[in-house]
C-alpha cells in the first residue's frame, strides 16, 4: 500500500483517485506463503458507476451522484443525521458512550497496534482506529460546537465537508470489524469501534444506506421473510427434515428434532446460515441434546429459526426489532430460556446489547438468554456422553469469537470442552481469549461480497487471523497432517472459509475448520464412524 503521508484535509480531496492504493509488498507478511493472489484493480465499468475513492474497494453499488445538487443533498442528509446522533431522543441508546468517546480522546494512539486491520495493512494511516473517529470529530466540531465554529483549525475543526468527505467516512466505517480490541487498551476508555458503528448507524437510520447484505438482504429480509438467508418457515421445516436425514446417515440414529414444542425448557436458536452452509452443526446439537436428554425445541415461527441480528452492526432500530421478535417467540412457546447456537454476534445481540431496548416483561430477568457454550460444557462434563478423545487425534486450535469472549466474557467453557474431547493439547493462538484477534469477518464483513469488498476482506481484515493460524500450526504444516480450526461462530466460519479458499490453506497446509459441537460429536465413541468428513468443504 502506498505510504504517502495522509493529511486530514486529503479526505475532502477529489474522488477520482483512491486516497490510498493497496500494495502487496507492504502488507503484513504471511511467512510460509510464498505467493498469494494478485490484487486486482476495480473493473473499468465499476469505476464509471461506483465510488472507490477511499482505497479502491467498496461494497456499495450505489450510483455516484451525477450533479452537484445530488451531492449537496447527500451532504445535507448526512449533517441532519449527525445532528440526530447527538440528540438524546433519537440516540438515547449510545449517546453517552458517543459523547465521551468523541470529546475525551487524547490522541495518544495507544489503541493503534491493538487493531489487526491497521497492523495487517502495513500500518496504513486510514485504517488506524483513531483516523475515522478524528474525521467524524472534526466535522462535528466544525458544524455543531461553539469552539469549532469560533476557533476552527485551532481546535482541529478543519475538514472541509463535501461529498468526498462524507462518502469516504462511510467507507471508513466499513473498514473496522467492530471487534473493540482498541477499547480494551485505551487508558481513558474511548471506544473507536463504537464510533465506527455510530457512523454506520447515522447512514442507515438517516439515509437508508448500509451494505445490501446487512440491510436490504439482511435485517429487512430477516424481518419480512423470516431469515436473512431468505429461508421461510416452510423452508425451515424442510431443513429440519434434511437435518434428521443427516443424523440418520452419519450416526444411524433416528432422532426427531423437536420444533415448536410448547413449554420446553430451552428454545435453541441457530444462525440459519448453518442450515444451508454447515448443516452438520445444528445436526450435532440435536445429537448432543438428544443424548443428554435436554428438554428443548426449535421454532418455525417467522424469525424464530434465525438467530442473526445484523442491527448490532449498523442500526439500533433493526437491532431492537429483531431481538423483540426473538424474545416474543420464546414467550409464546412458554420456554424457560433461550439458548443461542454457535453464532457470535447473535450471542452478543440477544444476551447483552438488546436487553435495554426491550420492554420490562421481556427483560433478561424474565426471559433469560444464554450462550450454548456453558450448556455444551456441562453436557460434556456430566458424563452422559461416551467420549473418546482419540477420535479427535489431530492438531486443534481455537479461534475465539470476539463477541463471545471479549464482549461477553465466555472464555473457559469452550476450552474445557476441547480439553475433554481432543487427544492433543489445545494449540492456543497468540494472543487468544479476550485478547484474540478478530477473524476478519466481524462487523458484517463475512457476508459482504458486493463489488470487490471480499478481496479487501481476504487481503487485509482476515490477514492477521491467517497469520495466527499459520503460526500456531507452524510445526505441522505438512498438508498430510489434517488440522482443525474450531470456530464456534457462523460468521467466523464464513471468514475462515473465505480465507482458506483465498490462500489455499487446505491444499497447501491441510488446514480445515468447523464448529465446536461437530468436534464433540466426532469424539462420541458410540457412533459407528467419524462425524467430521474431511473431504467436505471445510
Amino acid at each position, binding site marked *: 500500500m502506498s505510504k504517502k503521508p495522509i493529511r486530514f484535509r486529503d479526505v475532502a480531496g477529489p474522488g477520482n483517485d483512491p486516497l490510498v492504493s493497496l500494495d502487496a509488498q507492504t502488507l503484513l507478511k504471511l511467512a510460509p506463503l510464498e505467493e498469494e493472489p494478485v490484487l486486482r484493480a476495480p473493473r473499468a465499468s465499476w469505476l464509471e458507476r461506483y465510488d472507490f475513492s477511499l482505497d479502491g474497494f467498496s461494497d456499495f453499488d450505489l450510483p455516484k451522484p451525477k450533479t452537484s445538487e445530488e451531492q449537496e443533498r447527500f451532504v445535507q442528509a448526512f449533517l441532519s443525521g449527525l445532528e440526530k446522533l447527538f440528540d438524546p431522543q433519537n440516540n438515547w441508546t449510545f449517546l453517552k*458512550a458517543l459523547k465521551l468517546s468523541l470529546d475525551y480522546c487524547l490522541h495518544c*494512539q495507544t489503541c493503534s497496534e491493538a487493531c489487526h486491520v491497521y497492523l495487517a495493512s502495513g500500518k496504513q494511516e486510514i485504517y488506524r482506529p483513531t483516523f475515522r473517529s478524528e474525521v467524524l470529530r472534526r466535522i462535528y466540531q466544525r458544524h455543531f460546537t461553539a469552539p469549532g465554529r469560533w476557533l476552527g483549525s485551532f481546535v482541529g475543526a478543519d475538514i472541509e465537508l463535501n461529498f468526498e468527505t462524507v462518502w469516504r467516512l462511510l467507507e471508513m466505517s466499513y473498514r473496522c470489524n467492530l471487534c473493540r480490541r482498541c477499547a480494551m487498551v485505551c487508558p481513558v476508555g474511548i471506544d473507536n469501534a463504537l464510533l465506527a458503528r455510530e457512523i454506520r448507524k447515522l447512514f442507515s437510520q438517516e439515509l437508508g444506506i448500509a451494505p445490501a447484505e446487512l440491510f436490504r438482504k439482511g435485517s429487512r429480509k430477516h424481518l419480512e421473510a423470516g431469515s436473512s438467508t431468505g429461508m421461510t418457515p416452510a423452508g425451515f421445516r424442510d431443513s429440519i427434515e434434511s437435518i434428521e436425514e443427516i443424523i440418520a446417515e452419519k450416526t444411524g440414529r433416528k432422532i426427531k428434532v423437536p420444533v415448536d414444542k410448547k413449554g420446553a425448557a430451552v428454545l435453541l436458536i441457530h444462525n440459519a446460515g448453518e442450515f444451508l452452509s454447515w448443516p452438520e452443526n445444528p445436526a450435532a446439537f440435536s445429537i448432543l441434546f438428544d443424548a443428554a436428554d435436554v428438554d428443548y425445541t426449535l421454532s418455525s415461527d417467522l424469525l424464530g429459526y434465525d438467530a442473526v441480528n445484523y442491527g448490532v452492526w449498523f442500526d439500533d432500530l433493526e437491532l431492537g426489532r429483531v431481538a423483540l421478535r426473538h424474545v416474543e417467540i420464546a414467550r409464546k412457546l412458554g420456554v424457560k430460556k433461550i439458548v443461542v447456537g454457535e453464532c457470535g454476534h447473535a450471542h452478543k445481540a440477544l444476551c447483552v446489547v438488546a436487553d435495554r431496548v426491550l420492554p420490562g416483561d421481556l427483560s433478561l430477568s424474565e426471559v433469560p438468554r444464554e450462550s450454548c457454550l456453558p450448556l455444551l460444557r456441562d453436557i460434556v462434563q456430566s458424563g452422559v456422553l461416551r467420549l473418546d478423545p482419540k477420535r479427535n487425534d489431530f492438531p486443534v486450535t481455537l479461534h475465539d469469537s470476539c463477541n463471545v469472549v471479549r464482549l461477553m466474557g465466555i472464555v473457559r467453557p469452550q476450552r474445557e470442552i476441547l480439553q475433554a474431547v481432543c487427544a492433543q493439547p489445545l494449540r492456543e493462538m497468540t494472543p487468544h481469549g479476550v485478547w484474540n484477534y478478530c477473524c476478519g469477518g466481524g462487523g458484517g464483513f463475512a457476508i459482504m461480497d458486493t463489488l470487490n469488498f471480499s478481496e479487501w476482506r481476504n487481503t487485509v481484515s482476515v490477514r492477521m487471523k491467517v497469520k495466527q493460524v499459520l503460526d500456531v500450526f507452524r510445526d505441522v504444516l505438512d498438508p498430510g497432517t489434517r488440522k482443525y480450526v474450531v470456530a464456534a461462530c457462523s460468521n467466523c466460519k464464513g471468514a475462515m472459509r473465505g480465507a482458506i479458499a483465498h490462500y489455499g490453506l487446505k491444499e497447501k497446509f491441510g488446514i480445515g475448520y468447523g464448529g465446536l459441537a461437530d468436534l464433540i460429536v466426532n469424539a462420541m465413541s458410540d457412533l459407528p464412524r467419524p462425524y467430521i468428513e474431511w473431504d467436505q468443504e471445510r
Partner: protein
Amino acid sequence: MAFQWFTILFGWASFFLFVVLAAYKIHRIATLPLNLRWEVYPVPHETGDKHLYGGSYMEEVDWVKKPRPSSPLAEWAEMGSEIFFLKRVREHNPYHIWPLSLALHWGLYLLILWMGLLAASVFVPALTLLTMAVGISAFVLGACGAVGLIVLRATDRSLALYTTPIDFFNLVFLAAIFGLGLVSWWGDPLFSLHHAYVKSLLFFRPTPLSPAVVSLFLLLQAFAIYMPCSKLIHYLMKHFTFHEILWNDEFKVKGSSKDKQIDRQLSSLATWAGPHIAPGKTWREQVRGPSAGEAQKK
C-alpha cells in the same frame, strides 16, 4: 494593595469556578440517557480468577438464578493502576509516551499535594521540609513531562497528525506552570513566599509577593478555571467510560430502576429519516414495527 486583594479573591474564585464547572461537566454526562449494555472484558469486578482471564458470570448455565459475586474494590484497584501507573499506556503504547506522560501526571498529582501541604503547613510547621521535597519533585517531573510530550508530539508523525494546536496549547500551559514553579522556587528555595501567599489566601490577609510567585499562582488559578472546559478533565470522565459503560455488566430486571428508565427512554420520539423508519413514532412503536408495507409506503 488592590492587586494583592485581587490575588486572594481570584484564588478563591478559581477554586469555586473549578468546582462549579467540573460539577456541571459531570452533571451533563451523568444525566444523559442510560446507555445500552456495551461492556468489554476483562471486567475487573468479576471475582476469583475471572477478572484475570476475562471471564464473566455468563460462563455459567442459568446465571440469572445464580449469585453473581462482584468486587467493587477490584474495580478501584484496576482504576488505581491506571491513574497512578498509566498501566494501559505502559503496556500498549508504541510511541514512547509512557515515561513522559507518567512524569506529567505525577507532576500534577504532586502539585496538588504540594498545594495541600502548603495549606497544611500553615498549621503544622513540621511539614515544611516535606512541602519542599514534594514541590520540587512536582515542578521537575511536570516540566520534563510537558516539554517532552510537546517535543514528541511535534516530531513523531503518528502523533503530530492528530495533535491539534489546542493540544499543544494545553501542554504549553502545563509546561508554563511547571516552568514558573521552578523559576519561583529558584528565587524562593524554602517556598516561604508561596507559603505566605497560601496563608494570605486562607486568612484573607494581603501580603506582598515576588512576581514569580504571583505569576505561578495566577497561572495555576487560570488553569483551574480552564481545565474543566477542556478535555484535560478526562480523569473525571473515566468514571463514566469505565464504570458505567465498559465495565457495566448489569442485566435488566423487570421493575428495577433501570427498567423504569428504559421504559421512559422507549417513549422518546425517533425522527430518523431512513426508509425503514416510520415518521412520528416512539422507539417503542418503532421497535414493534413498521411492517414491510409501512416502510414501502414511506
